[in-house]
């Protein structure tokens, strides 16, 4: 029996191509048994409507701390969703925590950061040009840009960025690290952030952590010291891994069909925003998706799901669903409207989505201006995936200009 249940995430034919299993399951089995790399079983949703409905259902969250919840990674800790820390953003206090965070990620606040993001993008491109051709756009621009942005937002020294990358990877582990490595990384990250929060408290700056520390110190019980440390860690991890990977994937997808994508953007910069959204929709390599712990019996697509089940939703498969999108398998950079699922939906959808969108829009605009002749230095089919983490991305993006 167990051999017939496929292991999730599925294999992909190429780094930018979707797994053929997605389409088959959407057509034949939209609520499908899958096995996590831990060996635990879960159900996988692959259709747009089902993914959207479950993500928006406020009864269920990503927290997999219940004893019968599936573990999603190979290590003993079971992965980020099994952590007690993940429960903080899943419990009854979530709406209050979320409102407090939202004010730092409004369109107004993020738009005010745009000139600085442009400046960082120019500097990083200068450095890439100085390094000569071919360059690796992923390590030269994709990874460092969001790290610099989130470090400035939090008031953290970007000089630690290699450490942050390692700690983030460890936190988002699926199969890459063993438990000893994870325990060490978690302890280092914790020590760093506790110290950092204390520093902000004694010497407040003009940054988000200082602002949040002041809330803690007001002793109204809204945010404990421990919650502040967890929040800072979460923002640091979420603020760069996902966007960092997306920059490389977005540019690769746009260069994979230069005439219909890159060159059209060169002719019409008014398409930048819709091209960013379509890149988010078309991303076939976003990683794991999101889990939901089903705490009471429900029905999805006519299929009963019992309390105690772990469900995984594939936003990427939903984004390719022909039932939701005309020409779902085509990347159409002028697609409007584009209600894709890349940031999730509902009360737990991505807190930093306005910042992520702005970073992607700025990177694309600056690249079009600075490097109109940009092209992939290898065939798109030869790009290599980053594997073993909750988030998906490319190992490198070799480019010429």
């Amino acid at each position, binding site marked *: 029996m167990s051999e017939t249940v496929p292991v999730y995430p599925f294999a992909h034919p190429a780094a930018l191509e979707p797994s053929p299993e997605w389409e088959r399951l959407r057509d034949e089995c939209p609520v499908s048994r899958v096995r996590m790399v831990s060996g635990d079983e879960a159900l996988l949703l692959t259709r747009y409507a089902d993914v959207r409905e479950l993500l928006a259902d406020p009864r269920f969250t990503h927290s997999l701390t219940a004893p019968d919840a599936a573990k999603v990674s190979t290590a003993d800790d079971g992965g980020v969703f099994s952590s007690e820390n993940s429960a903080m953003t899943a419990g009854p206090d979530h709406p209050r925590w*979320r409102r407090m965070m939202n004010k730092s990620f409004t369109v107004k606040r993020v738009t005010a950061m745009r000139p600085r993001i442009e400046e960082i993008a120019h500097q990083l491109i200068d450095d890439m040009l100085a390094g000569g051709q071919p360059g690796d756009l992923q390590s030269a621009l994709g990874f460092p840009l969001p790290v610099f942005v989130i470090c400035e937002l939090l008031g953290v020294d970007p000089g630690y960025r290699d450490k942050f990358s390692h700690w983030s990877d460890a936190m988002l582990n699926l199969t890459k690290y063993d438990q000893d490595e994870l325990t060490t990384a978690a302890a280092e990250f914790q020590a760093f952030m506790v110290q950092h929060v204390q520093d902000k408290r004694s010497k407040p700056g003009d940054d988000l952590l200082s602002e949040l520390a002041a809330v803690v110190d007001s002793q109204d019980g809204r945010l404990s010291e421990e919650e502040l440390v967890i929040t800072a860690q979460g923002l640091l991890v979420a603020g760069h891994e996902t966007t960092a990977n997306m920059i490389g994937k977005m540019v690769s997808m746009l260069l994979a069909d230069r005439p219909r994508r890159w060159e059209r953007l060169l002719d019409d910069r008014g398409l930048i*925003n819709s091209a960013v959204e379509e890149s988010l929709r078309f991303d076939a390599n976003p990683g794991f998706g999101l889990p939901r712990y089903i705490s009471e019996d429900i029905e999805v697509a006519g299929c009963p799901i019992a309390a105690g089940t772990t469900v995984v939703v594939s936003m990427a498969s939903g984004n390719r669903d022909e039932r939701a999108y005309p020409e779902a398998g085509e990347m159409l950079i002028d697609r409007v409207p584009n209600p894709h699922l890349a940031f999730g939906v509902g009360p737990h959808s*991505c807190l930093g989505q306005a910042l992520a969108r702005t970073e992607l829009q700025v990177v694309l605009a600056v690249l079009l201006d600075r490097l109109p002749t940009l092209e992939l230095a290898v065939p798109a089919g030869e790009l290599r995936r980053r594997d073993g983490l909750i988030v998906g991305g490319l190992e490198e993006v070799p480019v010429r200009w």
Partner: protein
Amino acid sequence: MVKRIEFDEPKCIAAGQCVMTAPEVFDQRDEDGVAIVLQPVPAPEHWDAVRDAVAICPAAALLLVDI
């Protein structure tokens, strides 16, 4: 013809998508990011942008209805 925006405020999750899509019609509160409808009866030239905002709202908190 006249159209009106229906905004289900408790559902709003402050993603800011409406502000990015139709900045003349929507804003966000500074203190918690919750949307503000600047033009409850939007001018016809904003209808397309509002329809887009309605479609992409991740909280499904917006509607554009005939009155």
